[in-house]
């Protein structure tokens, strides 16, 4: 039995139409059908947050959301954060503060931090900690992530748009 549905949504600003099996998880749709490997898969039951994407501007777990449920929505993945080959100020701050080691949690952390800064452009360290409590990192001990988010908030307030670093590929 395969039950298939047509869905139409926006992914990283681009309209997208597809036919998906009803049991297709949103994270698998993004990774396998659209080739957007930024949303990672960790626990597959909603606990770790590495599959975080924004749906209509709100963070959600794409491993416990069906692709059919994303019909009509607007999705932002980490690939949509950087523009024109430039890193987003949050990504620059993560780089500068060594806020990642293995990088597995990073796409989810970035999107959760992005959501926080949209709602609250000048968070306190405690507010950053509370916000990212939804996402697990097994490497950094969180301290550098908190520092990076606070620094990104300052950079964004100072008008940064992502002019600092070249992405790694074009750098070396």
């Amino acid at each position, binding site marked *: 039995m395969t*039950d298939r549905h047509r869905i139409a949504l926006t992914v990283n600003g681009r309209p997208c139409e597809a036919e998906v099996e009803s*049991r297709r*998880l949103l994270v698998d749709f993004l990774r396998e059908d659209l080739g957007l490997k930024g949303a990672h898969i960790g626990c597959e039951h909603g606990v770790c947050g590495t599959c975080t994407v924004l749906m209509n501007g709100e963070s*959600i777990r794409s491993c416990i*959301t069906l692709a*059919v449920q994303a019909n009509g929505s607007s999705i932002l993945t980490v690939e949509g954060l950087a523009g024109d080959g430039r890193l987003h100020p949050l990504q620059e701050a993560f780089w500068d503060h060594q806020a990642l080691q293995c990088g597995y949690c990073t796409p989810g952390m970035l999107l959760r931090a992005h959501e926080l800064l949209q709602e609250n452009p000048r968070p306190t360290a405690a507010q950053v900690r509370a916000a990212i409590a939804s996402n697990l990192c097994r490497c950094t001990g969180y301290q550098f992530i908190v520092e990076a988010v606070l620094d990104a908030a300052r950079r964004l307030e100072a008008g940064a748009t992502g002019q600092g670093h070249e992405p790694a590929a074009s750098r070396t």
Partner: protein
Amino acid sequence: MKPPPFVYHAPGTVAEAATLLHEAGEEGRVLAGGQSLIPLMNFRLARPGHLVDITSVRELDYIRAEDGRLRIGAAARQAAVERDPAAAERAPLLVEALGFVGHEPIRHRGTVVGSLAHADPAAEIPAVALAMEAELTAVHAQGERRIAASEFFTGPFSTGLETGELLTEVSFPVWPPGTGHAFVEFARRHGDFAVAGAAVLLHLDGEVVDRVAIALCGVAGTPVRATEAERRLLGERPTPAVMAEAAEVATSRLSPASDVHGSSDYRRQVARAYVRRALALAAERARGGTR
């Protein structure tokens, strides 16, 4: 870990949803936020043949203040209730408890009614529903009925809902102005299910308690209302000694299950301490509110 195959339905109306569920019979299951159901399906602990997605039913997406009640439709997300001004004014206990439900990304999808239907014994919202004497509306292909929260929870993950029924609404009676509320819980990490949690509403007439409700989560197979402890408080000034005694009465006969988070005795002691704290906070707020 992927869900097994199923047929997905996105009805546009409650009547359509009820018909779909009726036709699917034992194979049918309501899908709301999916924050409990999809993990269960990923683990293959649930294998429904038909999912009826009620979040596509527009008429169920509401939060309304009406006839002294706060009414929440089955498609309303937990996060929407959390930031709703009418909810904050009329059911601050519910809003405070929602802050303990998982994390924001979970609450962006999860529904208030879905949490009641799921009936996790450690969940916060069922305890609030019990304390507030909430009423649920269940619809089936032939009609609808009302179910009191006190009759709804029948065991761990079990409720009085029948095959083919869906919940369309939960409504919370509003307590009088000046009521103090408190939801407190102990969990191993912020966002985890409670080891034990307590929900309290308390109203004072002058110095003495004239109305009080206490409910607990995490300490039994269902949320528990502590009626004996409530009676102990009525007509009394809520002094530390009286509240400590009420907390003892509320928890002394509980025998929570032992698990990795703690032994039965440990849970009971945590519950007692948290009932005492919830009472103290609610009493403080009630005094502030009536002054």
